[in-house]
């Protein structure tokens, strides 16, 4: 019903945009303040997001609520992580890092390498 009203009124929900912008901005600012907890954000349990994805009407999230990333934790150690799609903005910030760094990503079970460090597309 809300979608129909929005369609007629020509308005789109802006809250998801606000959320995405805030997540990226705060991930950056926390790092500048000496709270580099991007890794912590990525590693948070995803169960809440699984529940949310069931409630979320957007088809994209229902189909692929999670993304899989390969994280380089140190010079030698890597770790596979399942993250919520809502945290992709944070993951994107780590594609240009030395370590911890996101070195591969996928929205399904396989995990492909990040194509280019500068233009890594994690969508």
């Amino acid at each position: 019903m809300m979608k129909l009203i929005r369609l007629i009124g020509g308005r789109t929900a802006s809250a998801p945009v606000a959320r995405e912008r805030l997540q990226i901005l705060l991930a950056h600012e926390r790092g500048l303040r000496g709270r580099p907890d991007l890794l912590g954000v990525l590693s948070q349990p995803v169960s809440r997001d699984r529940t949310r994805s069931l409630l979320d009407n957007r088809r994209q999230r229902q189909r692929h609520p999670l993304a899989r990333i390969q994280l380089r934790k140190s010079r030698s150690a890597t770790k596979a992580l399942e993250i919520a799609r809502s945290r992709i903005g944070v993951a994107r910030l780590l594609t240009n890092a030395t370590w911890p760094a996101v070195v591969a990503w996928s929205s399904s079970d396989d995990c492909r390498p990040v194509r280019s460090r500068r233009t890594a597309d994690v969508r």
Partner: protein
Amino acid sequence: MAKVLVVTSGKGGVGKTTSTAALGAALAQTGEKVVVIDFDVGLRNLDLVMGAERRVVFDLINVVQGVAKLSQALIRDKRLENLWLLPASQTRDKDALTDEGVGNIIADLRTKFDWILCDSPAGVERGALLAMRYADEAVIVTNPEVSSVRDSDRIIGMLDSKTVKAERGERMEKHILITRYDLARASRGEMLSIDDILEILAAPLLGIIPESQEVLLASNVGSPVTLNNAVSAPARAYTDAVRRLMGETVTMTVPVERKGLMNRLLGRRAA
């Protein structure tokens, strides 16, 4: 044992002073002995919201500088005998507030009151830092809006690093109070949701104060909203928040206005 609570936010205009007055009055209504302190030197307003603006003789800086005793500066609320106000100075330089002076006042107030509520000024300058410096717990007031959430995140970082508790290696307990929440706009996706805010700020929710004209009506007449109209939606939300502060488990809801037939017909009432 007295508890020192700082009401802070970073961003201005989100409802810190309104919330301090409402929470202070609601705590006092439960029988607790409460003092609310205005730390906004140069731009004090807590006296106005509490309806005590004509009774201010001495202020916080007078006490810090030894010009007046604490008992001379404290103003007792006329409606609630266990609610007191320590106003800020309207004219003096905020640099007159010293760490040691504020520490001594808080230590003195701890022996006299059950709750000490510090109303922080906006920003991250001296007044805001001193308001949070001796706090045991923090209430972070935020609106469902990007700039407010961003500034709240910054304040959380400061609470974890610049307070006496942080210096001792102790954990500062933080509570998020969401104000000016519009349920209809949030459900249309035009406003950050409660879940979004809590996930970003990673702190527990103390309460959700709905957007309401009752808040403006109360400040117009110089009365905390919890005293002015105890059955209004924001008053009920603040009362629930106080019960949570006192350790009760209260189901989280967004109270809605109960409009009578006359109110529906006339639309609104004047203060």
